[in-house]
């Protein structure tokens, strides 16, 4: 097999009996924006740090352009990184921060000056060149950090939750800027976050991490419409999980009977063994796939919440599970707490997890 631009092969990282990263493999083409998405402790940062060279994998390999980088110390890997915490050098101004990687590479002064202004223009901070890091906002600091990490033209840029300390509005602003910079530079970016919206907004592909393993890799659309596992279904987008009483599978379609006796056929089947957690079969359906129907799953209305463009309705099934629906105001006009209703949905929009 011809190796991809960057490939991670069978990466494993254990600390005593704790397995932080468990057999992670990825093939990453040049120029891709790939996000590691997962809850904290799922192994996404540990994988990133193995790329940076800050921890030595227990086993497995990382190849850049076909050659292993594991034997190369961090400072010779030529990899760029933006950290979760602010890491500008506190005693150097913005210009000198961006110039630092060029100075340690022994470049000539005129080259350095030109490259620094080019980088500051890229992150639109030319006017701040003489500021000290302490006099910059959090967002500005991370943009300088980005300029510094890109100054030496690294083949790969690692970003470890760089926006998690910023407020929501600023975060969205810088996300747009990161997308633009990715477009303009074409650098391969590996981005770590636990924020699914951020992942969906930025990435070409997303690798969903859970308990040290990758549950699924794919575009945001793939993960949303065709989640491979219960975990991915629950982590990307909003979801309802319904218990089942009986399941019959033929091919890739299944027929289920819910605990209250309601039957439903033609559900797409997913066999998710690893990291699933629950063992009983469940049906996943998105809140916006639910419709009020003449005949369907009998439920009772618990609560109706008006949210402007849409409203959400909380229901309870006869067997006591809560389920919620998102719909336009006119569709749910007649509903009030305590009322009975029937819920239906297109079988193809739900997923049966065995």
């Amino acid at each position, binding site marked *: 097999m011809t190796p991809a631009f960057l490939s991670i092969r069978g990466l494993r990282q254990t600390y005593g009996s704790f397995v932080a990263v468990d057999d992670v493999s990825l093939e990453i083409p040049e120029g891709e924006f790939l996000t590691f998405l997962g809850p904290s402790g799922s192994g996404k940062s540990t994988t990133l740090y193995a790329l*940076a060279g*800050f921890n030595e994998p227990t086993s497995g390999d990382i190849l850049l352009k076909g050659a292993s980088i594991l034997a190369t*110390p*961090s*400072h*010779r*890997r*030529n*990899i*760029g*990184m933006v*950290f*979760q*915490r*602010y*890491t*500008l*050098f*506190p*005693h150097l101004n913005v210009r000198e921060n961006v110039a*630092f*990687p060029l100075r*340690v*590479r022994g470049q000539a002064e005129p080259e350095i000056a030109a490259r620094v202004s080019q980088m500051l223009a890229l992150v639109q901070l030319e006017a701040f060149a003489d500021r000290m890091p302490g006099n910059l906002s959090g967002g500005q600091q991370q943009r300088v*950090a980005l300029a*510094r*990490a890109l100054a*030496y033209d690294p083949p790969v840029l690692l970003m470890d939750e760089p926006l998690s300390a910023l407020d929501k509005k600023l975060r969205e602003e810088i996300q747009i800027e990161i997308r633009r910079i990715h477009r303009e530079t074409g650098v391969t970016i590996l981005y770590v976050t636990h924020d699914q919206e951020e992942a969906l907004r930025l990435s070409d592909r997303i690798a969903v991490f859970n308990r040290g393993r990758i549950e699924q890799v794919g575009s945001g659309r793939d993960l949303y419409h065709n989640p491979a596992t219960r975990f991915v279904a629950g982590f990307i987008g909003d979801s309802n999980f319904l218990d089942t009483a009986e399941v019959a599978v033929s091919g890739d379609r299944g027929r289920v009977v819910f605990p209250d006796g309601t039957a439903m056929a033609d559900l797409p089947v997913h066999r998710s063994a690893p990291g699933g957690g629950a063992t009983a079969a469940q049906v996943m359906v998105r809140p916006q796939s639910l419709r009020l129907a003449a005949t369907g799953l009998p439920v009772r209305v618990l609560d109706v919440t008006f949210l402007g463009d849409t409203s959400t309705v909380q229901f309870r099934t006869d067997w006591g599970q809560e389920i919620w629906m998102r719909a336009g105001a006119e569709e749910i006009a007649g509903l009030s707490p305590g009322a009975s209703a029937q819920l239906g949905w297109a079988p193809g929009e739900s997923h049966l997890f065995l």
Partner: protein
Amino acid sequence: MLLTYRHLGGLGVALWAVTILVCLFLLVPIVFIAALSFGSSQWLVFPPPSWTLRWYRELAADPRWLEAALTSAKVGLLSAALAVLLGLMASFALVRGRFRGRGLLKALFLTPMVLPVIVFAVAIYALFLRVGLNGTLVGFVLAHTVLAFPFAVIPIVNSLEGFDKSIEDAAVLCGASPLQAKLKITLPAIRIGLFSAAVFAFLISWDEVVVAIFMASPDLQTLPVRIWGALRQDLSPVIAAASTILVAFTLLVMAAAALLRRRISR
């Protein structure tokens, strides 16, 4: 807060009184010495019958005093440099190291601060007697380095704990070797801690007398040792003049340090 100054009432007045008394207790002897050093009485009469600079002239005329001051400065600077260097390395181990007995090691590093000075003085005297370091500059500096060491470790450990290791990691990924990253990024970032360590260490050595008496020889005396020696021979106002200069220099170092620290941390 239940116990605020406002609600103390009469106790507040008492608190003021105690504070003023403590300050007086600390300051009056120094003021007295300074006043006596300018007094004309040979017998240290207070208040002085008239004022003179005679004792300062005598002080300047006696080369042994100048020599003692130079020795003090030499020992102080060398001890401070050594204490900061060792303290820096120890601090990296204490802050970054993950090994058994780290807390114990830290406690050990701080023992010179709490160990009775006379015990330490006798111990190091006995040791140096065997290796022939008594009365040498090297011995003097080593002994004072031990005393100054904890005062160097404390500010360096504090500033290193306040320094985010990710910043050093960032420098390494930028292409700096781990040593380069420490020299070019970490040390400048914790320079206030290093500076405080150097000032503390110097001052510890500068006015130290107990260990110094054990380390000294007739040819190698620091200023406090010289004052102590002179005091035992005869009670002359020259000693008051020497003491005043010692205090004045200490104040000068502290004031300069405070000013410099403000400029560095700007």
